[in-house]
């Protein structure tokens, strides 16, 4: 029930903060903050289960912590099923914390139609929460598509110069690919229907049929591709990443935070939660291609990031690079790399959210995102610059911070199967250092542009507001979490261990024995 409450709270909270803001200006933010705080408390209800996982490895039977199942469209065997396990808990926590961070960080940024903005912000979060909880493919798809509508509005109404174009591009890319996902979902269901005579959209039941000899047929491969493409667009993998730089750059700061920190993770989550368990054989056959895409993404993203002059665009391309590690880790198909990928998802979510938040606050102060205009902030805004430096080196993968954990685990896990991919991906780490240092050298330590100083002469160099206390508190959240995960990643890794161990059993012994299928069915929420 808690999951349902969580979902309802975010949806209602969106409407409430809209109404509140209309009644009294400034009121909406507080309502939204309260809603998010209550949501986090609700999620805190699962802390005991999370602590249990630290103590003992979860068995398939005890994998799911909580679930709710209500028949929805019985004609097609569709039920409204929400469930949570360690992986889902991590993702939900990331979603809500980044949502909180984005709200507080950009408290004053949106001054136009604030009520509607807050409503869309919370509704996006609600959609993402739905995606991370849904354990029925039809329901998952519904959330998967609808979460984009408020996100689209966030970009299109409150975005920057080219917002409409970026918004439409973003939406069409993701929707067109999700039509493939829909076709693949329906296709899997039809296969299930032909083999068992019953219609179901439950991933556990589908797993049971798809793991039989059907898995060897070319159809399975095509169905897997339908799933893969939809998730790869959201990830984004290289070749289908072109929507990302525009959408991230044009979105308002909080929109960029949501996109980078959470929405990209839904793609990776989909791969881990659905593509791999449903199509183990086809995924194994496909894994070299996916890993090649991952490595290409790492290198290409780093290269493109280096050549950007727009700070937000630079961060956006660095996301392409970091998500390449996630793709690589997922398709290494072993438990270590998979846990590394999950850790990388969390670390990237936190660090990129903070980076976009800082880029937004720089733009708010300096009215520019161009590296050539935003220079030498160490002299004018030392506190902000210091925090910025921290998150840049975190994104570069400095040992002791969370990103390093994720990347190194992915590299270790990959090395076992594909040493060359691992070696090439490691080159990407150097790339990250290069574009990161470019940012440090230019933005933090470069000479402050002379033109701006002339125009600000009346205000003096202190005319720029350094980090506000509100922003500092907001930034402390990802900062502390990154340090904590970096120094002591075990609690985080344990959360995803249950699911990744389960997946690993499919890939170490991919034989179609009913035993495995049965064990997963036993795990049905």
């Amino acid at each position, binding site marked *: 029930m808690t999951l349902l409450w969580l979902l309802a709270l975010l949806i209602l909270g969106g409407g409430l903060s809209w109404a509140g803001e209309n009644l009294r200006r400034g009121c909406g933010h507080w309502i939204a903050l309260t809603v998010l705080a209550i949501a986090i408390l609700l999620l805190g209800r699962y802390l005991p289960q999370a602590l249990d996982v630290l103590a003992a490895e979860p068995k398939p039977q005890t994998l799911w912590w909580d679930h709710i199942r209500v028949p929805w469209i019985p004609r097609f065997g569709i039920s409204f099923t929400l469930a949570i396990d360690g992986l889902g808990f991590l993702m939900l926590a990331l979603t809500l914390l980044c949502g909180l961070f984005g709200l507080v960080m950009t408290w004053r940024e949106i001054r*136009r139609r604030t009520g509607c903005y807050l409503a869309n912000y919370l509704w996006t979060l609600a959609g993402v929460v739905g995606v991370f909880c849904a354990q029925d493919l039809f329901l998952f798809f519904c*959330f998967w598509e609808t979460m984009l509508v408020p996100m689209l509005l966030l970009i299109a109404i409150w975005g920057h110069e080219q917002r409409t174009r970026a918004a439409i591009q973003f939406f069409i890319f993701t*929707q*067109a690919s999700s*039509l493939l996902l829909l076709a693949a979902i329906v296709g899997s269901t039809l296969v299930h229907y032909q083999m068992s005579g019953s219609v179901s959209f439950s991933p556990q039941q589908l797993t049971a049929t798809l793991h039989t000899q059907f898995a060897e047929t070319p159809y399975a491969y095509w169905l897997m591709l339908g799933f893969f493409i939809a998730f790869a667009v959201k990830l984004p993998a290289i070749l289908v990443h072109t929507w990302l730089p525009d959408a991230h750059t044009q979105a308002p700061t909080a929109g960029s935070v949501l996109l980078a920190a959470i929405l990209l993770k839904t793609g990776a989550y989909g791969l881990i939660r659905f593509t791999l368990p449903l199509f183990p054989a086809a995924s194994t056959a496909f894994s070299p291609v996916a890993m090649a895409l991952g490595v290409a993404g790492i290198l290409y993203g780093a290269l493109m990031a280096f050549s950007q002059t727009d700070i937000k665009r630079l961060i956006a391309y660095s996301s392409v690079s970091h998500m390449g590690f996630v793709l690589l880790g997922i398709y290494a198909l072993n438990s270590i790399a998979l846990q590394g990928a999950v850790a990388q998802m969390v670390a990237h979510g936190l660090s990129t959210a903070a980076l976009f938040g800082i880029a937004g606050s720089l733009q708010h102060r300096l009215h520019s995102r161009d590296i050539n205009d935003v220079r030498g902030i160490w002299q004018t805004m030392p506190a902000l610059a210091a925090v910025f430096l921290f998150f840049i080196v975190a994104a570069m993968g400095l040992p002791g911070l969370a990103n390093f954990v994720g990347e190194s685990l992915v590299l270790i896990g990959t090395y076992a199967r594909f040493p060359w991919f691992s070696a090439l991906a490691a080159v990407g780490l150097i790339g990250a250092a290069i574009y990161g240092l470019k940012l440090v050298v230019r933005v933090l330590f470069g000479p402050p542009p002379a033109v701006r100083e002339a125009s600000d002469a009346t205000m003096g160099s202190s005319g720029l507001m350094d980090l506000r206390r509100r922003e500092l508190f907001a930034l402390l959240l990802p900062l502390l979490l990154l340090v904590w995960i970096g120094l002591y990643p075990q609690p985080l890794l344990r959360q995803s261990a249950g699911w990744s161990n389960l997946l690993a059993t499919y890939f170490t012994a991919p034989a179609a024995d009913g035993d495995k299928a049965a064990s997963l069915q036993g795990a049905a929420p």
Partner: protein
Amino acid sequence: MSLRDFIALSPLLIVATGALVLLLQLAFVRSHRAAFATFLLTLAAASVDGWIRLPAVEQATAVTTLLRVDRFSLFFCLLFFFTSAVCGGLGYRYLRARLTGNRGTSTTLSSCPSSSSCGEFYFFVLLATLGACTLVSSQHFASFFLALELISLSLYPLLAFPVPLAKWGAGRDVSNREAALSLESGIKYLITSALATALALFGIALMYAATGNLQFSSMDFSRGESALLIGGFALLLAGVAFKLSLVPFHVWTADVYEGAPTPVTAFIATLGKTALLAILLRLFSEFSVHILETSVAMISLLAVASMLGGNLLALRQRNVKRLLAYSAIAHMGYFLVVYLVIDRGIAREATIYYLVAYTVTTLCAFSAVSLIDDAALSDVSNPQVTTGDDRNPFQQSFYRGLFWRSPTLSLCLAAALLSLAGIPFTVGFIGKFYLITAALDGQLWGLLGALIVGSALGLFYYLRLLLTLVEAPPIASGQTAGVRVVVDQPHTSAEPAARNNPLLISRSGLGLLLLLTALLLIFGIYPQMLINGINAL
């Protein structure tokens, strides 16, 4: 004909009687409101009759060799009654807005002589409804053709329905422009439709020659694919494709949609097409298309051409009615997919669901457009307002920032657009889900691909309109402060004032729109209700 036959046909008879009563009534009482009341009363009586009879009908009743009444036809009769009532209601608002102008001048215009000529509108709507009901009940090509002609013949005067000429300032220009466009649309439809009818009739004749019978169920296909049969079927298909505006028989669609009074556009887009689609379901399941291998190729070609053509042509449209016209073409293309898997269990269910989804969504979209148009007319009749491209209530630029002026209205339009685009939790998504399921079930890979590409193209223009709704209204002061604040401020000129005031929508019109939106969402969120109803047919 026995009493039993009359009882079976009672909804049709009620509508026919209502139409005649209305005609007589108009000879004596030329009141617009009274005509509308008779119209609604007729539909209400017919709906109640149909609603009561629907569960009671156990098996099909053949009324002569021409008609056949069963649950399937009764269900569609009810859908048509609903459609007509909505379109009639929109027509009432439409005619009233033109008869009385804006509220300030209504007293002077009530004596306008042309105001008395609009009661016939409802007569023609009733006739078309009767045609549609007859069409879904037909089981013989003679009744099929008669019903089809009845629909077309009542649509001609509706399309070119004389708009009462306004006698005041700027409104007269609008009225004249509307009248010219509407006449053009009527004549275009008349000429092209006559040609299509002739083709279809010739096709029916050829098929008769080939099969020796005109009753759907007793046509004899045993002689295989003769040239006569294929030729006849192709000609019939061409006639049907014209009415459904499938590519390449679509050329009339955009012009007719654009020119016709918006309630009539809604009518032709829903009833004019759904009636034919419903009877095709019966026709094709009687003589399964797969008897004719060639026909599969023909239908597939039409489907793919319509899906891609309709969506591609819509991409560059800036006129909302034309955009909806091309989107309708694409939707007809999607629809044909189901007919290719007619022998599968899911086809019937999918067809009926998609028909309902299409009707509700299209009605919702056109209701919003029509109400916006009516409200804009009373704006335009304001003499100080200039005319221009973004003054045309059908141009996309008119919709800019509408959400901030009239949120409820825009939300309804947005819901309709999302449903057309097939976003979850709307009825359009469930419809699309059915289509994809049907296409996969029949393993129609090519058509599935076209469907996906077409839908992706479609997203672009639906979204563009959707985003136009939420764009900042084109005023300078709105850039920095919220619109709510701007409205309260004293205005320096009249222009921004007109731009920021909410559109004046009548309460009944808004209620109608909200009802349609509610249906659209309910059937989208909880489709099982409708699915149960369909499976009980």
